[in-house]
């Protein structure tokens, strides 16, 4: 198990490097730089600015310096737009917020989704099953940017129960709607995957043997059926986490929570490339990490994969 983990970790590093390089190159080839604006600057001023940000160096040196700073100093460089702020500052401000409700959404989607899926599979072809499937499909059709307006419509404008935005240090009335908006559609897809996986497991030969042994049904579900059922669900959870991350972009904008998403889209529109690059690398790195965790979890669930 340990060997497998180490090997997977080592394999993740080139992925990360490639990610950084690709993003870097992409931004370099984009037309227009961070300082092209409506007012043309005198060449001397432009040269000074570029020298200050290191943009006058050859590309490979820029890349090398950038990489060096990240790996050894964890420094993503200065923001191009905000003269007195570093990318690190911007990230440090927005990331904890995104992470909080992102993680809660992930938790909510997984727990509710799995519960719904298992309940539907156990009571196959009863009203619980039909209800859960319909709910799942309906939920999948309501992604975050649809749920957002609907939730605000109902809970803020009509009922006036919940505030329509802001963060307020993460107090729960400000958390609820972002979490529901972000988690609903994945709740639906996780429920459906869990349900079909469990249906397949319940039809397998070893469940038949367990029944023939006279073991109580509940024990069969928990001890024999759960782990194999969750196997495909676990491999789906990796991408779900990524979707939740990227979906948080929307939540930040719509609910004005001040998370990283606002910084991201803002930097995209204002061409603040260092922030753009920093956030992309951060999210990409998180993705790689989560994929690694999912792979390891997968191996834990299935003893045959232990290599």
């Amino acid at each position, binding site marked *: 198990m340990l060997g497998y983990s180490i090997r997977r970790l080592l394999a993740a590093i080139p*992925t990360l490097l*490639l*990610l950084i390089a*690709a*993003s870097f190159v*992409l*931004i370099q*080839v*984009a*037309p227009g730089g961070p300082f092209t604006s409506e007012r043309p600057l005198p060449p001397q001023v432009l040269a000074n600015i570029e020298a200050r940000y290191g943009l006058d160096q050859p590309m490979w040196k820029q890349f090398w310096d950038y990489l060096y700073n990240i790996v050894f100093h964890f420094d993503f460089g200065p923001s191009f737009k905000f003269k007195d702020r570093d990318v690190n500052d911007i990230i440090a401000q927005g990331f904890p917020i995104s992470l909080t409700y992102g993680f809660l959404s992930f938790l909510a989607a997984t727990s509710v989704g799995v519960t719904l899926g298992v309940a539907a599979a156990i009571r196959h072809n009863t009203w619980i099953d039909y209800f859960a499937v319909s709910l799942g*499909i*309906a939920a*999948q*059709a*309501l*992604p*975050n*940017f*649809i749920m*957002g*307006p*609907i939730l*605000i*419509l109902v809970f803020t*404008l009509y009922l006036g129960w919940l505030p329509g935005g802001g963060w307020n240090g993460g107090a729960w009335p400000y958390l609820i709607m972002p979490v529901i908006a972000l988690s609903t559609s994945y709740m639906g897809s996780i429920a459906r995957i869990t349900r079909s996986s469990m249906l*397949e497991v319940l*039809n397998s030969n070893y469940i038949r043997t367990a029944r023939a042994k006279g073991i109580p049904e509940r024990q069969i579900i928990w001890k024999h059926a759960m782990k194999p059922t969750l196997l495909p669900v676990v491999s789906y959870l990796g991408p779900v986490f*990524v979707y939740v*991350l*990227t*979906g948080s*972009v*929307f939540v930040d*904008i*719509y609910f004005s929570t001040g998370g990283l998403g606002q910084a*991201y*889209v803002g930097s*995209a*529109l204002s*061409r603040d490339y260092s922030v*753009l690059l920093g*956030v*992309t690398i951060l*999210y*990409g790195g998180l*993705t*790689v990490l989560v*994929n690694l965790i999912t792979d390891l979890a997968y191996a834990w669930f299935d003893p045959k994969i232990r290599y």
Partner: protein
Amino acid sequence: MFGSSKKTIELAEAVNEQAVVGRSLWRDAYDRFTSNKAAMVCVATLGCIVLFTLAGPFFAVWDNETIDWTAMGDVRGLGAPSVESGHFFGVDDLGRDLYSRVIQATTTSLLVGLIGAAMALIVGTLYGIVAGYLGGRIDGLMMRFVDILLAIPSTLVIILLLVVAGRSFIMLFVALGAVSWLSMARIVRGQTLTLKNRDFIEAARAAGVGEFTIMIRHILPNLLGVVIVYASLLVPEMILAESFISFLGLGISEPYTSLGALIAEGAGTMAYGTLWQLLFPLFFYVTIIITMFFIGDGLRDALDPKDR
């Protein structure tokens, strides 16, 4: 050796006349799909919506660009949906007829969905077949490439691309296509690998059929089932992705809109009592997505039943 030639020729003729038509797997799948009530209802619904986009413009009083200055001044009152003013769905915040805009937006969204899915399908399938069939090192390399690309959050890539290369119809398709062919390639490659090891492929090889012919004659038709199912799931995903981008303001630019952009606008004016601006595009959007999900489910049940 087995009887005179004349006798066998007669036999062959008799066979041609009396041969029973076999029940191919496609036929089976078609029967299963058509007997799935939920899926058929959704096909009908979707058909109605398509009909609406095609025939709707004939009933439109206003086009989708002209600003109705009278309604604009009093959007809440005069801009509400009514038959007399010709604004069947009301007007948007700038005074433009929502009915025509919704028709145009639905058309855009459907087109984006279909074309985007088609592109992803073609690129992904070709890539997947080649990787799966060649196997070994090449397959490893090709799939490593796909894995790395998959590690990058797709929405970020799309946003990046659109920001970097500018917003246009073409760029939108390129961006959407660039991220969605990946999972298709993975699925097709997996299926190709499974098929490659099946006995009938080995039988064809033992019978002297060339590798390329095997790919075309045997593997491709057996892949179609999986490809159809996942392509049908791709369409709503494309629409979703495009709507998300439009919602953020990075998608199609005026005067063209998509359902995502309309929903964004409608959501923005919710508080002012002009709910129709949100509800009409929302209704069309949700209906399209839900029907497509049911159809995709129905296709999967029809083409890959577990009870065989």
